[in-house]
């Protein structure tokens, strides 16, 4: 799975993206966040306040409860501020 970060989430995690092997038991964005938070203190810090985060799976906005598969591209970012 490719996990991409943007804006301050990217800054706090410290990387633009990473390729991970999704464990069998990680089936939603919600459990993915817990899994990623174990990777480093930076991850934990960036992903701790879930209310501030938005998500996409394969370039579509999704809710935190969205089911995911190992070949998805997941992005984690703050609310958008374009235009």
């Amino acid at each position, binding site marked *: 799975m490719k996990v*991409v970060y943007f804006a301050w989430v*990217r800054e706090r995690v410290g990387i633009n993206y990473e390729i991970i092997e999704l464990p069998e038991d990680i089936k939603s964005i919600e459990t993915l966040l817990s899994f990623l938070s174990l990777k480093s203190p930076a991850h934990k810090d960036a992903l701790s306040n879930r209310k501030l985060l938005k998500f*996409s799976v394969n370039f579509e906005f999704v809710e935190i409860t969205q089911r995911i598969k190992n070949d998805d591209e997941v992005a984690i970012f*703050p609310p*958008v*501020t374009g*235009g």
Partner: protein
Amino acid sequence: MVVKIQREDFNISDELELLNLEKNNSGGCVTFLGKVRSKNNNFIVKSLEIEHYPIMTQKQLESIESQAFKKWQLNSSLIIHRYGKLLPGDNIVLVITTSTYRQSSFKANEFIVEQLKTRATFWKLEETLNKKYWLKPEQTLNN
């Protein structure tokens, strides 16, 4: 329906010419131009850095445009959104809608600009005189 996400600046007159309004009999053409303001939330702005999620942004903008075409009788439309480091006064975004009758252009343009602010994956890092911070939606929604 054109979507361009680019680092480079744009020129409105050139873009209008490319749309070839006379060919599709457009009598009305509405343009929204968004610029970097020199003051935001009472702070002097030094620069604005715009980051985006390339493939997703393109998809979202195209979907917003299609929706506008479904809702209103449009002849053509264009969205250009810049990314990268911009300075006060620089162009950020251009939305052009053209239609045979003006009403559709006005309504569709406003719709696209609104949707753009909530659905397009852009993030703005604002640099004021003494700090740099990521803008929150409530700080940009009405801009």
